[in-house]
C-alpha cells in the first residue's frame, strides 16, 4: 500500500495548478500515485524534435524548461515553461514524434504523468478536457478554436469564483421585500386601491388561495385602466385589470443579475417564488426601486443624474459612481460588451451634458454660438466605445463650412466651446490630452472641408510616423450635434481610399509594427527577440495590434458604422467568411484584454496599461499566451492580405 503522506504531498503540489486545481482530491491523489518524479540538471534534454513520443506528459514542479524548434541549425524559442506549466502533451493525443525540443533551462523537478491516466481524466472531466484541448492546440501552433476552448475553460473556473465572491459579499445581493402585501383576485378594484393607499405602496400582488402569484396591480394600472376609463369600473374584480402573468424568479439574485434582467425584460417588478415559477408559493418581490437603492449604483440612475446635473461638480460624482458600478460588474464577471455599452452611454451622456453646460455658460458670458451646424467627435478609445477607465480625452469638433467672411468668427466660437467642454471633462476625471488632440485646439476644431483635407493628406501621401499619430482620428464617432457631418466626412474618407491606392497597405503595415510576445515566464514577458521585459504593456503589446488590425480591415471593407473593436471583428466575421473563425477569436481575445486591463486598472488606481507579470495568475497567463497566438495569426492574415512582404520600408 502506497504511503498516504507522500501521495498527499504530491497531490497537494499538483492541485496548485490548472487543470488539477478543480478536481476532486481523490482524483488528484490517484493521478499522484501514478506519476514519477524526475530531477534534471541544467542543460539536459528531456526530448528532442523528432524523438518518438514518450507515454507521458510533463509538468514543471520546480525549475524551468525551454521549448524550441530548430531549423537549419538555428534554434527558435517557442516557449519557456515554469512551475505548473505542462508540456509534451502530444503524447496524450497520439501522433508519432515530438515537433519541438525540450531542454532544462534551470535545474528542474519534473512530474511525468502517464498519458493513459491523463486520457482517463480527459474523458471524465470537462475542465480537464477543455484545458488539454487548449494546451494541445498551443503545442501544435495552430488555432483550431484553441481560444474558444480556453475561454470556456476560464469561464468555468471564474463562474465558480464569482459564485464564491457572491456568497462572501452578501451586500451585492438584492434583498427582496419579504412581507409582500397581497390580495385575492376577487376583491374589487376599489378595495385593492384602498389597501395600496393605506399601506402607502405602489403595487399589490394578486395571489391564489395557495399563495401562487397570479398578477400584479400597480399605480400605473390604476391610472390607465381605471381612472382614465369612462364609466365606473371600481367595483369590478381586480382580476380584470391586473397585469398577468407576473415575471417570476428564484431568490438570491445579485444586483448585476437584476439590472440585466430589468434591461432585458423592460419590467419593473419581479416576484420571487419557491421554485422560480408561477406555480409555487410567493416568497417576496423585487421592484425597480429595490434594485436601484440596493447599491445606490445603477446605470439608469447615474444617467438620469448626469442629465439632470446643473453643476460641473456633480458630473465627477456620477462618473465616480459609474466606476464603482464597473467594479461590481467586473467582480461579478458580467460580459465586457454589456459593461462597455453601459459605460459608453454614461460617458456620452456626460459629454453631452458638458457641452450643454458649456453652451449655457458661454451664453451667460455673452458669447452666442453661431447657428452653424456642428458635431462633437470622440476619437481613439472613446470613439471606439472602449473607454471603461478614465484615460486621456481625445476629441475634435467638426462644423459645416461657414461663408468665407464668417470663418474666423465661427472657429473662434467653437474653439471657445471646445475649451469649456474639455475643461469640464478634465474636472470630471478625464485628463487633458498631452498631445492636445482636443476640440480646444484650433487645429482640431475645423469645418468639414479642412477635415477632409486632413484625411486626404494622410491617405494620399502617407508618411509612417504621421500616420501612427493619426490612427486615433480614423476612430472618430459623433457624440453630439449634427451626425450627418460625421457621415459626410466618413464618405469623403471612403472616396479618398478609392483614389489613394497603397494607403491601406501602409495602414496595415503600421498595424504590424508590434509582434506579440510569446508568453510569460515567472515575472518576465518572454519575447522572440529574447529581450525579456519585466512589465507587460497590455495596450501596446496586445490591444493595439488587435484594434489596429480591426481598423484597417473595417476601412478596407468600407464599414460606415462607428464600431468598437469587438463589433468590428464581429462584422468582419460576416464579411470575410474565410477568416470568420479568426475574427471571432480576435473579438473574444479583445474582450478578454479589456477585462484584464480594467481589473488591473481598478486594482492599481491607474489606466491599467502596465501589468506586473507576477500579478497574473496561471490561467490568465495561459489565456494571454493563447491571445498572443491569435494576435500572431491576425497579423499573419493582414500581412498576406495586403502582401506586405513586398512593400519596402
Amino acid at each position, binding site marked *: 500500500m502506497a504511503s498516504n503522506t*507522500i501521495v498527499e504531498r504530491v497531490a497537494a503540489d499538483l492541485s496548485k495548478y490548472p487543470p488539477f486545481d478543480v478536481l476532486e482530491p481523490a482524483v488528484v491523489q490517484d493521478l499522484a*500515485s501514478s506519476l514519477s518524479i524526475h530531477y534534471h540538471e541544467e542543460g539536459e534534454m528531456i526530448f528532442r524534435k523528432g524523438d518518438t513520443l514518450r507515454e507521458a506528459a510533463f509538468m514543471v514542479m520546480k525549475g524551468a524548461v525551454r521549448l524550441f524548434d530548430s531549423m537549419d541549425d538555428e534554434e527558435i524559442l517557442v516557449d519557456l515553461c515554469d512551475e505548473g506549466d505542462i508540456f509534451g502533451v502530444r503524447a496524450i493525443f497520439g501522433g508519432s514524434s515530438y515537433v519541438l525540443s525540450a531542454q532544462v533551462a534551470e535545474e528542474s523537478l519534473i512530474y511525468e504523468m502517464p498519458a493513459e491516466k491523463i486520457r482517463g481524466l480527459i474523458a471524465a472531466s470537462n475542465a480537464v478536457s477543455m484545458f488539454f484541448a487548449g494546451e494541445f492546440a498551443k503545442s501544435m501552433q495552430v488555432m483550431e478554436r484553441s481560444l474558444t476552448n480556453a475561454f470556456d475553460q476560464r469561464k468555468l473556473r471564474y463562474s465558480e469564483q464569482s459564485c464564491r465572491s457572491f456568497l462572501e459579499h452578501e451586500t451585492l445581493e438584492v434583498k427582496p421585500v419579504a412581507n409582500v402585501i397581497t390580495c385575492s383576485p376577487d376583491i374589487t378594484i376599489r378595495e385593492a386601491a384602498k389597501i395600496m393607499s393605506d399601506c402607502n405602496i405602489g403595487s399589490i400582488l394578486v395571489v391564489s388561495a395557495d399563495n401562487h402569484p397570479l398578477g400584479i396591480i400597480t399605480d400605473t394600472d390604476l391610472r390607465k385602466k381605471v381612472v382614465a376609463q369612462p364609466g365606473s369600473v371600481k367595483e369590478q374584480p381586480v382580476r380584470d385589470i391586473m397585469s398577468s402573468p407576473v415575471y417570476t424568479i428564484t431568490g438570491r439574485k445579485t444586483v448585476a443579475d437584476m439590472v440585466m434582467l430589468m434591461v432585458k425584460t423592460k419590467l419593473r417588478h419581479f416576484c420571487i417564488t419557491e421554485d422560480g415559477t408561477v406555480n409555487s408559493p410567493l416568497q417576496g418581490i423585487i421592484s425597480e426601486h429595490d434594485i436601484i437603492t440596493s447599491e445606490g449604483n445603477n446605470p439608469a440612475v447615474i444617467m438620469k443624474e448626469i442629465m439632470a446635473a446643473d453643476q460641473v461638480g456633480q458630473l465627477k460624482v456620477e462618473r465616480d459612481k459609474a466606476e464603482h458600478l464597473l467594479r461590481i460588474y467586473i467582480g461579478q464577471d458580467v460580459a465586457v460588451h454589456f459593461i462597455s455599452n453601459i459605460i459608453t452611454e454614461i460617458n456620452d451622456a456626460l459629454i453631452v451634458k458638458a457641452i450643454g453646460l458649456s453652451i449655457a455658460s458661454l451664453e451667460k458670458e455673452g458669447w452666442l454660438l453661431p447657428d452653424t451646424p456642428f458635431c462633437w467627435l470622440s476619437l481613439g478609445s472613446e470613439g471606439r466605445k472602449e473607454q471603461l477607465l478614465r484615460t486621456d480625452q481625445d476629441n475634435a469638433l467638426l462644423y459645416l463650412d461657414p461663408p468665407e467672411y464668417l470663418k474666423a468668427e465661427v472657429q473662434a466660437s467653437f474653439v471657445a466651446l471646445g475649451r469649456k467642454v474639455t475643461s469640464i471633462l478634465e474636472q470630471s476625471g478625464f485628463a487633458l490630452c498631452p498631445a492636445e488632440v482636443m476640440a480646444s485646439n484650433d487645429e482640431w476644431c475645423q469645418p468639414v472641408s479642412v477635415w477632409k483635407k486632413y484625411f486626404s493628406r494622410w491617405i494620399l501621401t502617407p508618411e509612417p510616423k504621421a500616420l501612427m499619430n493619426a490612427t486615433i482620428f480614423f476612430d472618430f464617432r459623433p457624440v453630439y450635434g449634427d451626425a450627418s457631418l460625421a457621415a459626410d466626412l466618413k464618405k469623403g474618407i471612403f472616396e479618398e481610399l478609392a483614389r489613394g491606392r497603397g494607403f491601406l497597405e501602409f495602414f496595415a503595415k503600421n498595424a504590424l509594427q508590434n509582434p506579440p510576445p510569446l508568453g510569460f515566464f515567472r515575472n518576465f514577458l518572454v519575447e522572440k527577440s529574447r529581450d525579456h521585459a519585466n512589465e507587460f504593456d497590455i495596450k501596446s503589446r496586445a490591444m493595439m495590434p488587435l484594434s489596429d488590425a480591426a481598423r484597417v480591415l473595417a476601412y478596407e471593407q468600407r464599414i460606415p458604422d462607428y464600431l468598437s473593436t469587438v463589433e468590428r471583428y464581429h462584422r468582419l466575421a460576416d464579411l470575410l467568411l474565410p477568416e470568420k473563425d479568426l475574427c471571432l477569436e480576435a473579438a473574444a481575445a479583445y474582450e478578454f484584454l479589456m477585462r484584464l486591463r480594467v481589473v488591473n486598472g481598478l486594482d492599481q488606481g491607474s489606466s491599467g496599461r502596465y501589468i506586473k507579470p507576477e500579478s497574473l495568475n496561471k490561467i490568465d497567463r495561459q489565456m494571454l499566451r493563447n491571445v498572443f497566438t491569435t494576435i500572431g495569426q491576425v497579423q499573419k492574415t493582414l500581412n498576406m492580405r495586403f502582401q506586405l512582404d513586398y512593400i519596402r520600408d
Partner: protein
Amino acid sequence: MIDRLIIETALYRCRNNSLPESVCRYLRLNRKKIHVATPLADIRFVVFDTETTGFDVRHDKIISIGAVSLRAQRILVGDSFEVLVRQEKVGDREAVSVHGLLCKDIAFGVDERTAVSGFLDYIGNSVLVAQHAGFDIAMVNQLLSRYFGIRLFNDVIDTASLAKRLEKGPYYNLAHKVGEYKLDALCERYSIRLHDRHTSAGDAYLTAQLYQRLLAKSRKSGIKTAGTLLMK
C-alpha cells in the same frame, strides 16, 4: 560470507515452516548479491526512514516506517510504503517533540511483527537508502532479530556519507562542521523544499529527493554502476 550463512540457516527454518512466507521470500531474493557491473538505471532503490521512541538502538522502539522507491532516476510515487507501529509508549518527552506522534496515533498502528514483515515484502532485494542509514538499519535489525533471528541483507547507501564523498572526495574523513550533513542542512544546500518533516514518510520523500540530486552529481563524477556507487 556471514550473511550467506545466516540466510541459508534461516531458509532451513523456512523449509520447516517455522518462518512466515514474507520473510522466506525476502531471504530467497537476497541469496544473490547485486552484480557490480549493474548500471544505476536498472537498480531499484528504496529510500526509507524510521521514527523511534528514542535513540538507543537496543531499547527504543520503531513507531513508524516510511519509504519510497526510485528507479532510473525517477521517484515512483505510487511505489511507496508507510506503516504505523502500535507501541505501548511513544517515547520520552524529547522524542515526542520530534516526531509529534502521540499515544492515540500509535494505538491505530499494526503490531511490530506485521509492520516489519510488510517492510521486507516491500524492499525485497532493493538497495536501501537512508539519511544516517546506520541508525535506521540497526532499528529494523533489532526487530528482525527479535522476531525472526535474521537481519537486513540489502546493500545500503547513507545519503550523508554519499554527500560528503561527492562534495569532499571519497576519503575525506576529517571533522566537518557539526550539522553540515544533517537532513535539513542538506535539503537547504540542494534547494529541496521542506515538507512533512519528522514523519517517517515525509523524511523518506525528502531523502529521496536529496538522493536523486546526489545521483545526478554522481553521474558527473563517473559513478555509473552498482560497483562504483557502493564502492565494491
